[in-house]
């Protein structure tokens, strides 16, 4: 599998670390319901299909969001978290 680092370009999977669902970028407000915080921290889907994930390019220190498909292993798009949360 190859991923495109927003800074370095296309690189091998071995250079990257998986950091979980990109849901982590959608932090609830500080005064949100307990339920919202519970879901933010603990509840994750396990989809066979399109996902949005956080990845980290270890050698250069860049975070990114990758849109990929767990059923086909296709990587559709990668972007910086700033672009992803715009």
């Amino acid at each position, binding site marked *: 599998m190859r991923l495109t680092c*927003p*800074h*370095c*370009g*296309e*690189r*091998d999977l*071995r*250079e990257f670390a998986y950091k979980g669902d990109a849901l982590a970028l959608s932090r609830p407000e500080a005064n949100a319901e307990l339920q919202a915080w519970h879901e933010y921290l603990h509840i994750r889907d396990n989809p066979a299909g399109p996902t949005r994930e956080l990845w980290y390019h*270890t*050698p*250069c*220190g*860049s975070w990114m969001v990758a849109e990929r498909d767990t059923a086909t292993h296709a990587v559709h798009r990668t972007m910086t978290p700033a672009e992803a949360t715009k």
Partner: protein
Amino acid sequence: MADLIARPATHGLLPIEIGSVVLEDAQPEAITWIAPYNRKKSAVTRTLGGFPGPGQVVEVKAGRALSVGPGQALILGAPAACDDAAVVDQSDGWTVVALDGAAARDVLARLTPLDLRDSALSENATARTLLGHMTASITRTGPYRYELMVFRSMTQTLIHELTRAMKHVAARARLSGPG
């Protein structure tokens, strides 16, 4: 005060020549990490005489500047200073060696997942990547010459890994050679 003699971490370990490849010391006088403050990149570029984009090496007043991450560069050469950027002297933090020879690329190919073909890593291009289990910076400084940087504490591991790969590539060449 006593005049201390600076020694690179590779002191007494290099050069090593195996087959067509030589591994040698390439430690510069100083290594300076530079990260321009917000909206100060053009000012920093003017002060330094250049600033590398992703994957680039550019000549600057103090020496050569390598891109090492988003908004960060390492200057190899004379000590560099700049008021518009975060500047850290990392001279003692890195070991720089050069791998030179016709089979240098074959040796590196055994250790790094980086695409080393001319189309992906041309002369004067640089990349942050892995070398064995270490994060490293690889810069192609000639058609058959690469400069490799790792943290100074990993010098012996670097030399061990490279020496092993150099032996394996040389053994392969003997097997497939004439006769």
